[in-house]
Every structure is written in C-alpha cells, then in structure tokens.
C-alpha cells in the first residue's frame, strides 16, 4: 500500500457510522429558518378553517345559527355536526375503541370542544366570523373529579352509550365507566400481603399535563376532485396510519390519498392521534374543492388536543423486615375526559402500565385500572414516554421511597436489595413482561459513587440539624430514581393499532455511484433520524453517512410503518434498517466475489468493502461494488442494489437508568433549587452519543417541568385553567438545572444492533427523581407523600402543614 491509502481507522472515521458524535444534518436547515413546516405550506387558492368552541364544560347545544357569520364577506362555509352527518363523519373512532364527536352533536363534554368549523378566505376573517356564529347552550351539571365519576347520581356524560354495558375492553359498571383492566395474580398477591412483615399504602397521583410541542397541531387538506385524490399535509407522528384511517373514514381508496408529514416541530405524543381539525379540514376541502388549512393556536393545543397522565394510583407494597419486597398491589383511577381517545396499542387500555413492578423482583403483583369519563378534554397520550410507562415508573419509584421510610432504610440501599439480578435476565415479571437485559446493580453503584451519595446524605443530616436549631431556613432533598422502561412497540403478537401490527420498515437504495437514498416508516419530530439512520446504514454497508439521504413522512414513497412515538423508532425501524442494510451487504458480497473471481465464502467484510481472506490487497469497496451492480452484475443475478425490510420485533426493549437529584428548598417561599442532577442511562448500543445526550437533556427538562409545576388544571365549573405559556410551565434556560449525564451499555440481545431507544427515558426516570427529592427533603419533618406538581406554593403549603413555619 502506498502512503495515500487510508488506514483502517481513517476509513472507519470516514463513515461516521455508529458510535460517532456526528453533527445533526437536519440542523443545517433548522438553524437557518429553512425547515418546511405545515404552516409554511401555501397552495394556490388555499382557504382557512377555524373552530367555534364551547365556553362550557358540559351543556346541551340547542341551536347553532351561522346566518350572520355567512354574511361576512370572505366567509365560505360554516360546518356543523349536521353537515358532517351527511358524510357519516359527525363522530370518529378513537384509537382506544371509543367514538368521539368531530363537532358537537347535540351536546358538549368539555370546555373548548369543537362546535362548528368556519371556513374563510383568510385567518382574520375566519376569526371574525367565529364571533358571529350564535350558539345556544343549556348548561348541565359538570363532573370534574374522577373520584365522583362513578357516584350513583353522577351526571350522565355520554347518552350515546346509554344501555351499553360492554365497552371496547369488557364490561362497564357505571354510565361513566369506560373499562376495567386487571393483570396479575390476585390471590398470590393477597397472600403476600397477609404474610408480610411490613406494608405501605399511598394514593399517588400523577396530575394532568400536556406534551405542548412548540409547533401546534395543523394540517392542509387538498382534494383534487378531477383526479379523485386527496393530499393531506399534517403534523403526523404516524403518517401511514393517518392515511389508512383517512381512507377507512372517507372511503377514498388508500392509493388515492397522499399523506405527507413535512418537518415537525416537536410531537411528544401530541401528534399521534387524529383530531377534529384534520377531519374538518378534509371535509371542507372535499366540499369546497380548494385546499383548506387548519392551524391550532396555543390555547387550543393545550386545552383540546391530547392531555397526558391524569392517573390516580393507590399503591401498596408488602415486604419483609429486611426490606425484601414480596408483593405489589396497584389500583389506578384513570381520568380519560369526555371520550376515551388514549393513544395506546389497541389491546392495551392502560398502555404498558403493567411495567409497574419496575426494576424490582416482585414475586407477586396485581394491578387494576378503571377508566372513567369526566368533563375534560380527551387524550391520554404518551407524553415522551412509552404508553403509560412514566406513570408506572413514578408510581413504583415513589412507593419504594415510602417503603424505605417505613423500614428506616436508605432508599438507594432498598432498591439495590430488590433489583432484578443480572443472571435473572431474560426476566419474567409478575405482571407479564419478559425483560430482555439489564445490569441494574452496576448502573446504580456507578451513579452513587459518581454523585457521592453517602457524603450527600451526611450533608443533608447536618443541614436538618441546623434547621432544627433555627440556623437556616433551607432544607435539602436527595431524589433517588431507578427506572426500567418498556419501549419498542411492538411484537405483532400483542401490539396493533386499529388492527395494523406494529412493525416498522426501511427501504434502502444504493445508486450506481455509491450514494444512497433510504426511507423509513417512522417520522422524526426532532429526534434526528436523518442523522442516526444514516449512521446505522453507514456501519452496516460501509458507505459514508454523508452520502446517505434519509427521507421520512411521505406515504407515497416511504414503506408503510407505524410511526414515531413510545421510543419505538430505534427498537423497531432501527432494526429494519440494519436488516435491510444486511440484505444489501449480502448481495454486495456475491457481486464482489464475482468481481474478484473467488467464492463469496472466501471474502470477509472490512469496514467499507469486501476483501479476500488472508489477502487484504484483493478487495472491492462498496463504491466499486455499487457500480458493478448496475454495470456488470454477475450472470443470473438481478441488477441493482436495493432492499426493503419489514421488522416485527420479537420482544420489547427495556432501557433503564439511575437518576439522582439534589435539591435545596427555601421553606419560607417554597422555592426549590436543583443543585445537581445526575442521569445515568443504559439504552444498549449507542448510535450517536451526542444525540443521546441531547435527547436526555430535553427529556430531563420536560421531567423537571412536569414535576415542578406543569399542569392542566380545571376549576369546579370545568374551566381549563392556565392554558397558555403564561401559566403552563415551560422552563427557560434560566430555570433549567444543569444536567450531568453518564451511561452504561447493556445491549439488547434480540435487537440486530443491540439498541434499546433513549428519547423517553429521561422523562420517565426524571419525574420520580424530582418528586422524590421534594418528598425526601420534608421526610425529617414527618412527611410521607406530597402530590405533584411541586410548584412553589404547593411546596410552601406542604412546609406549612408540616409545621415548618413555626
């Protein structure tokens, strides 16, 4: 070899493949304001739709009069439920097996519910016209407290379900009851409790919040009546599913519907579902024959499209005196609002909440979830978490702290004692999951050592003494959280959405000159797929990531996939990408063998090409092979070099992590200051460490927001409180703590590249770390449990109730 021949290391570095801190390629356009979002789409003749919304949380709609609105110049149409009935779209099915009104059909069930859809030549006229639509309401008694939903005299929220004793998930026991879901062994668990040395019980609430992406939900629908084709640009985390649903609802054949998700400004679960805005824009375009744009404003987004959480979890643990846990019992009251529009795989009415045994070896467990209706907005989406996993993690992590307190054990030690052991993997949990891999002890020990856990406890003790002596008004909390997630939905044996199995897909085409276009069924909303997908391909087929273009979101060109949410992209599509790439590599090997005139078995892979075993000088690079694939393929072989893979995962993946939060609290104001936050994540194989770090920073910031104040609250009249960024807590750089990140690597044994997914771990593990820090701070004053969110006034109130104000 001459001096100009790149070394193996140089060739490897040149690929920017897996493990490389490759800069995000999409940021070139995002940071220059050149992203193409839905609201950037302007079609000739496009008009605008906007909603008349209900000021009441529960009322009959007795009259809608659009006469004055229609007189306003520039107003084209005002749609009501009556109009939608003509096309059988006044109601739509939800992902959870319920039905939901598209426009108010005789009544409204929550404040800001969609009542009429005004279509006008511009946004200003549409908004003026909204004020001119006269709606008469007859107020009904309002139900906001889920604990009152099943009271005998509770108002009937859903007369459409009258007499229906069977719901989508089994029997309904009350007119406001949606489902009961039970998992685990009830008798075994009861026995564990009767045999226990120690038990704890606490009602742990996870309040209602909202994913609140920066870009709200929006779409442009365009019906070409001549071709009979519908094009919908929209903020869709799952564009292919949206196309299938649109076809089923509209009866337009699926191949004549083009769903395109352009750049998306954050999703976090908010953009999984189908909303009345999409349906109304589509119907309006079909009616008017011109493109119709619908764009939510911030208040509409926060108050109507998809809340998250609202789980009220009565949690009991049975244990031995030495701290060994023996049983877990959880009952969840799930507030679903006016319609059950939870975005879960169809068979899972409470998502994967049965991951609630967490990282601990519970021999027995039993879980029951009751879903109920209230006069609140529908949703129940997985806000930066796999389905209901963050609720589960919060539930068990808070409860483990409460148990540690009762046992007078250190909470970190209690966790160590009960972790599933490395040799127990694959581990069968009492509530039905098979954990793929984990090494919890190593992760926890590394975290404790790095943060100086024992020293922090000593410092805390000294501060408590000083507080008791009246020398300081500041107290200190240490939040411990060890979470296990379940992501990568999912295996077709237990996961589908409206009957479509939750596989995902990738298509890779290598061009003659050795560059690549690849398309996936997923859809990035900021996760950086264009960067990381190319890295997987680069490593697998030895073509530099810079020569690989990744495209998602266009249902005409991309293979069918279930989309991006629940940390499923890397576990599912990431596997499809690796397998498609391997098909290409296999074919490339045969081509190389032909070129080198050897048997393919005499070849070995070397970074970016094949070489003859024992004779590295005889090699063909992927670039040369690509050219040969189109120029002179081996006889009897199809020309070309491309592959498609559809991947049905054999199991979920189970990322985990150890998080610690150190907090100082001013008891006089309730202001909490996060002094340190340390996050150790194990997401298996790490594709791009820089993107992982960015994902962890973002997820932790959301966790901080949720735990420390972010809330969608209602008053007793069902008025939604603070649905704007004035009140809804989005931390700025000033409030956001400094994040220390760390990792261990325990690859997934069943995933082609061993990757588990990371985007949601920090939200799942972060919330309990913050909440446990607040609760821990007040423990020495007699606290067991303070409900979230922990905004300043609530912390102050807790301090006051515990007598800290003298």
């Amino acid at each position, binding site marked *: 070899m001459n001096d100009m021949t790149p070394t193996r290391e140089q060739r490897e570095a040149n690929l920017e493949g897996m493990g490389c801190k490759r800069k995000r390629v999409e940021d070139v356009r995002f940071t220059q304001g050149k992203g193409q979002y839905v609201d950037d789409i302007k079609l000739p003749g496009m008009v605008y739709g906007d909603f008349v919304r209900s000021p009441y949380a529960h009322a009959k709609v007795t009259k809608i009069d659009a006469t004055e609105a229609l007189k306003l110049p520039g107003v084209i149409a005002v749609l009501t439920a009556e109009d939608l009935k003509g096309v059988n779209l006044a109601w739509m099915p939800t992902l959870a097996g319920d039905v939901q009104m598209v426009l108010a059909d005789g009544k409204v069930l929550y404040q800001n519910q969609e009542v009429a859809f005004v279509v006008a030549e511009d*946004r200003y006229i549409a908004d003026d016209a909204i004020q001119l639509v006269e709606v008469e309401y007859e107020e009904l008694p309002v139900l906001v407290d889920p604990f009152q939903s099943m009271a005998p005299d509770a108002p009937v929220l859903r007369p459409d379900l009258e007499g229906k004793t069977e719901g989508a998930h089994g029997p309904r026991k009350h007119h406001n009851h949606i489902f009961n879901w039970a998992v685990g062994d009830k008798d075994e668990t009861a026995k564990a409790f009767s045999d226990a040395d120690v038990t704890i019980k606490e009602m742990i609430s996870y309040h209602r919040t909202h994913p609140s992406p920066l870009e709200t939900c929006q779409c442009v629908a365009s019906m070409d009546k001549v071709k009979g084709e519908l094009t919908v640009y929209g903020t869709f985390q799952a564009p292919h599913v949206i196309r299938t649903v649109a076809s089923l609802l509209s009866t337009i054949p699926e191949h004549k519907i083009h769903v395109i998700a352009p750049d998306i400004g954050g999703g976090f679960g908010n953009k999984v579902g189908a909303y009345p805005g999409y349906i109304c824009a589509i119907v309006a375009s079909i009616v008017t024959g011109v493109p119709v744009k619908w764009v939510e404003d911030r208040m509409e987004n926060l108050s109507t499209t998809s809340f998250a959480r609202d789980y009220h979890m009565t949690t009991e643990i049975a244990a031995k005196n030495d701290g060994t846990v023996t049983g877990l019992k959880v009952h969840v009251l799930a507030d679903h609002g006016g319609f059950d529009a939870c975005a879960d795989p169809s068979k899972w009415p409470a998502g994967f909440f049965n991951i609630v045994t967490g990282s601990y070896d519970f021999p027995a467990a039993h879980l029951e979830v009751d879903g109920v209706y209230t006069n609140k907005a529908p949703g129940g989406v997985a806000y930066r978490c796999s389905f209901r996993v963050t609720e589960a993690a919060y539930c068990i992590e808070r409860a483990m702290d409460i148990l540690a307190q009762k046992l007078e054990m250190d909470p970190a030690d209690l966790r160590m004692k009960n972790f599933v052991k490395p040799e127990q993997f694959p581990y069968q949990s009492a509530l039905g999951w098979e954990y793929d891999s984990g090494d919890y002890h190593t992760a926890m020990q590394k975290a404790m050592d790095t943060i100086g856990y024992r020293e922090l406890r000593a410092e805390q003790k000294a501060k408590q003494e000083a507080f008791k002596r009246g020398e300081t008004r500041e107290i200190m909390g240490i939040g411990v959280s060890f979470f296990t997630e379940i992501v990568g939905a999912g295996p077709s044996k237990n996961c589908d959405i409206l009957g479509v199995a939750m596989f995902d897909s990738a298509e890779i085409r290598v061009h003659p000159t050795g560059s690549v276009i690849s398309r996936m069924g997923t859809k990035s909303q900021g996760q950086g797929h264009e960067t990381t997908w190319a890295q997987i391909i680069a490593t697998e087929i030895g073509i530099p990531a810079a020569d690989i273009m990744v495209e998602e979101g266009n249902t005409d060109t991309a293979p069918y996939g279930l989309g991006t949410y629940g940390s499923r992209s890397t576990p599912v599509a990431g596997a499809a990408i690796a397998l498609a790439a391997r098909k290409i590599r296999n074919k490339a090997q045969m081509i190389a063998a032909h070129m080198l005139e050897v048997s393919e078995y005499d070849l070995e892979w070397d970074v970016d090409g094949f070489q003859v075993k024992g004779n590295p000088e005889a090699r063909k690079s992927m670039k040369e092979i690509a050219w040969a694939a189109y120029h002179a393929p081996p006889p009897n072989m199809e020309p070309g070099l491309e592959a498609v893979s559809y991947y049905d995962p054999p199991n979920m993946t189970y990322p985990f992590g150890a998080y610690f939060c150190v907090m100082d609290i001013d008891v006089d104001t309730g202001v909490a200051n996060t002094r340190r936050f340390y996050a150790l994540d194990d997401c298996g194989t790490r594709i791009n460490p820089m993107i992982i770090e960015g994902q962890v920073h973002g997820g932790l910031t959301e966790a901080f927001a949720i735990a420390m104040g972010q809330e969608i609250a209602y008053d007793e009249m069902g008025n939604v409180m603070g649905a704007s960024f004035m009140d809804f807590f989005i931390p700025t750089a000033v409030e956001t703590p400094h994040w220390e990140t760390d990792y261990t690597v325990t690859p997934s044994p069943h995933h082609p590249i061993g990757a588990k997914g990371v985007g949601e771990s920090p939200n799942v593990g972060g919330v309990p770390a913050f909440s446990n820090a607040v609760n821990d701070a007040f423990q020495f004053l007699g606290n067991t449990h303070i409900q979230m969110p922990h905004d300043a006034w609530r912390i102050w109130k807790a301090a006051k109730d515990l007598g800290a104000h003298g």
Partner: protein
Amino acid sequence: MIPGEFTYHRPSSVAEAVAILVSHGDEARPLSGGHSLIPMMKLRMAAPEHLVDLAGIADLKGISDGGATISIGAMTTQNELIGSDLLTQKLPIIRETSLLIADPQIRYMGTLGGNVANGDPGNDMPGLMQCLNASYVLAGPDGEREVAAREFYEAAYFTALAPEELLTAVKIPVPAAGHGYAYEKLKRKVGDYATAAAAVILTMDGGTVSSCSIALTNVADTPLFASDASDIITGSTLDSATVDRAVAAAEAITEPASDGRGPAEYRTKMAGIMVRRALARAAERANG
C-alpha cells in the same frame, strides 16, 4: 389569537395624538411598546378600533435630570432605563426592577409609560413609582395635569387616565444620596409577573431608619403603597419585633387573587416575605 380589525394612526406630536383620541373617544387606544396591549388584542380582550402609535412622537422619549427630580419620557423603553447611567447613579432601584421585568426581548419594546398607564396590577413599575412617590404627567384636550402614582390606580385596568388623555412623562423625586433600596420579586420563571413583590427605599441615620417607603406589586387589584408598614419602620432600628409588625401591616393591606401563582393566602404571606427581604437588603445597602 388573532386581533380584530382596527385603523392604525401614527401622529408626530402629543397634540396630534390627543386630537385623534378626542375624536374617537373610547374606540381609540394609545400604543407604546405593545407588549401588554397587543396580547390583549390577540385574545380579543381588547378590541380598539383605532390604534394611536406613539412611536413617532420624539417629545415622549428621553430621561432628563432636573436635580431634585428626574423626568422620564413615557416612550422610554425598559431597556433604556437599564442602560441609563443617570438612573443607575441616582435611582438604582429602577435598574434593579427593570431587570426583573419579563425578558430582554420584551424590555427592548416595552416602555415605562405603557407599563404605568396599563393599570395591570401585575406590572412592576406602578408599585415602584408609588414607593418613589412619583407623579405622572397627563396631557389632554385641556392641557396638562399631574397625578401622583399613589393616587392614580383605581382598580385593575381602571386608572385616573381619561380616554382622551396621554401619559407623557413620569417625574420622580430623587431620594437622598446614600439611600438603601431593594426590589424583591418572587416569580415562577423568567418572564412571569410577580407572585408578590416589594419595593423598599430607606435612609439610615446611625442605626436608625430616618425614612422608609414600602410598596407592593400584584397582591391586590392595584399596586399598594404600604403606608402603615413604612411608618412602623421609620424611626426604628429594624429590630426583629418592629420588622415583624411592619410585615404584618403590609400583609394586612393585601387582597390578592388566587391564580396559578398560588392561593391568596400564599401570596399574602409572600408579600410579607418580600417586604422582610427587601428591608434587610435595603438596610445593608444604605450608608449613614
């Protein structure tokens, strides 16, 4: 989040602006930085048919040193208040308070005149102006008049300002050299209005407080001049019993709303804490 229709005016003198206000009465509203008015218009909580933009009136700009009194033009931005050497030297509490208003982007646009004329109890400048015993110069069809900040506020968004009047300047008596000052503001995050805030100006003579002025922000439907609390502190050595009494007196005049910042009880207590902390910091800073 889309405002209704309006006509835009851009007068170049106070007289011209007043004439437009007179001819449209209630239908017209002055526009300064727009950072209170435009959000309200987008929410359609305000729907003026005529917007009278004051940005073209040179006379409304600038800070002038009148010796015992400093006069600040209504269109002076909050950012300009922060950057003024004169204010930093003579009235440093204005800089301290301005830095706690909203965020830099808003402070580049928002004006002192708009902040005090707005009548939103959440604004920080009105309480501060009460603490400083400032007065507002109002220009109307019948000429100018002055109204003390302590007399100006009637209820949320109701002030002594008539629909056809403009606020042209704020006049502030300069506190004695060596005075102590502090603006303590508790807020949920950057860009938030106060959960409670307190402004304190005091002068010390030996260990004794020779004068003290305390005002509160966002704990009633108007800013509050805490005259009893101010009187209790004046003449004291800031011993803890006296401070406790003053804090109690300040808390007693609050009537906060319960909102996302917390229930009324909390906000009253926070007003007290802010007063306590502002007194301590002001005393630390005072010479004499």
